[in-house]
């Protein structure tokens, strides 16, 4: 969300001046306090009826909240001062300060805004971890259903002589509740292991990067077909400028720049004009393409994951990790679940590849926690940098491409069973388990 206005700051200023608690104003405006908090920290755009409602609740004209750019600086400075024990006399001289030292005032205001942004990020992270409303609602629903089942089952088990109509009614209730429990369990697992749908939930630079890449479908047309990459730097700058809305944090912008530079390099090494004809002959099989195009497997996998939808070549997912096993890129593939939080399943070929650098792994897999979809994966670990000079040990990154197995010749060997991550994986006696599963052991 761009910080294109400071309407939120003005709302906060007016509210504080009026001595109204945030929760009270939220109630009057018929929104949640957490949403008002985001508005007040300029993390959400506001307009229309909600703006009018808040202005009414504050007893001010809506325009007084949306206009007055010259007051934005003063509002921010007052807010910065309100967090200190500055005396009233000095507090009242804020306009004089801004007028006499505009540069210092702007710097102070900018720092205040950065603090607010950081606080918002911390609040969002904390909220997500401890008060996720979807998670809370899903768990409440599940526990209520389990309670109903337990109470009803207890009656059926403990009551020796139960009238037929009661028995029938309780059987029906258990049947209904067990179906509801199955649905809510599936919904919960789906929620936990699918990426978030809205930017409201974005709280880490990596998630910002992924939202940005998703918006472009992981394909950047302006970086394709540049002779020797000429003009690539300008194109990257334009893309980053266009993506400002998604890439709010400096970390996300740096990560996006790094991704785009690697993309440009890949596009120069394996241009679409070479890749497309090969796709006609070999399909999306990375190994076959690597051999036919005399290009390393990693570059081929990244280029497949960056194909435009118009290429008609079928979807290819890609995950990459650094030498610590931390996922640094997650291009999703329908049906292949990627962990939303925390580390992935250690059984993934991606991590096996780290233990045998430069040796490609071809592995058919099935995620047991999902609907049983079978996928063909290719994984390889390659050096990406050195710790020091040319004689020092290299650092490795591993990459794994995932392809739907539809249309690929039937495999002789049974697929490798693996999960998404331990918390939501029901596999029992798994050698790779790091922590108990909430599906089998509860919270």
């Amino acid at each position: 969300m761009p910080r294109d206005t400071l309407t939120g700051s003005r709302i906060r200023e007016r509210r504080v001046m009026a001595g109204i608690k945030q929760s009270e104003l939220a109630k009057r405006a018929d929104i949640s306090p957490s949403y008002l908090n985001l508005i007040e920290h300029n993390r959400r755009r506001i307009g229309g009826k909600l703006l009018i409602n808040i202005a009414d609740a504050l007893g001010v004209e809506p325009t007084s909240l949306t206009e007055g750019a010259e007051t934005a600086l003063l509002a921010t400075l007052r807010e910065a001062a309100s967090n200190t024990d500055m005396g009233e006399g000095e507090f009242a001289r804020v306009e004089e300060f801004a007028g006499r030292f505009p540069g210092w005032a702007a710097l102070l205001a900018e720092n205040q805004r950065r603090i607010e942004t950081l606080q918002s990020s911390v609040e969002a992270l904390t909220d997500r971890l401890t008060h996720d409303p979807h998670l809370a609602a899903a768990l409440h629903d599940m526990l209520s259903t389990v309670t109903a089942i337990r109470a009803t089952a207890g009656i059926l088990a403990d009551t020796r002589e139960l009238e037929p109509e009661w028995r029938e009614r309780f059987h029906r209730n258990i049947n209904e509740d067990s179906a509801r429990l199955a649905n809510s369990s599936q919904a919960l697992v789906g929620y936990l292991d699918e990426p978030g749908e809205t930017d409201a939930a974005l709280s880490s630079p990596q998630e910002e990067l992924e939202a940005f890449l998703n918006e472009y479908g992981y394909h950047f047309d302006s970086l394709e077909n540049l002779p020797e990459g000429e003009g690539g730097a300008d194109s990257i700058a334009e893309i980053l400028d266009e993506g400002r809305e998604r890439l709010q944090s400096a970390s996300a912008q740096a990560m996006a720049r790094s991704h785009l530079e690697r993309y440009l390099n890949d596009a120069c090494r394996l241009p679409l004009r070479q890749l497309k004809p090969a796709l006609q002959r070999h399909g999306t099989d990375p190994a076959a393409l690597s051999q036919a195009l005399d290009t390393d497997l990693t570059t081929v996998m990244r280029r497949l994951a960056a194909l435009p939808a118009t290429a008609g070549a079928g979807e290819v997912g890609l995950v990459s990790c650094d030498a610590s096993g931390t996922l640094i890129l997650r291009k999703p593939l329908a049906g292949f679940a990627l962990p939303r939080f925390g580390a992935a399943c250690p059984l993934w070929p991606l991590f096996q590849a780290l233990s045998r650098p430069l040796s490609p792994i071809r592995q058919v897999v099935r995620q047991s926690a999902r609907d049983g979809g079978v996928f063909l994966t290719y994984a390889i670990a390659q050096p990406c940098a050195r710790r020091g000079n040319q004689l020092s040990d290299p650092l490795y990154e591993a990459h794994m491409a995932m392809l739907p197995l539809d249309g690929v010749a039937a495999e002789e060997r049974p697929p490798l069973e693996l999960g998404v991550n331990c918390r939501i994986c029901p596999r029992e006696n798994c050698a790779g388990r790091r922590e108990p599963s909430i599906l089998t052991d509860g919270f």
Partner: protein
Amino acid sequence: MGKHVLVIEDEPNIIEAISFILMRDGWTVDTHANGHDALDAVREHAPDLVILDVMLPGRSGYDILTDLRAAPATRDLPVLMLTARGQAKDRELAERLGASRFMTKPFSNAEVLDALRSLVPS
């Protein structure tokens, strides 16, 4: 005529199961399924004990408990709170607001009966 309990809970199958258990145990049972007019239901039924769910449509069980404790007529009314959140802070909040007992879902029928019998001895 047995003791009179009002069950304020929005999950119909929990209501049905609890009602059955309590009626078999000799209680007179009334039920109410939402929070916003739960206080009216308490005044209307004048129960000996209330079983109160925390998460109710319309109004939280904590808010209802607060109002019950503020009114002279219900200040000492035994209230058994039911919640799906069993963390210590939830229990502490319920106790601070004046809950007589606090029970975390899922619970067994025997636990409910024991709690009620201890709160309203026959």
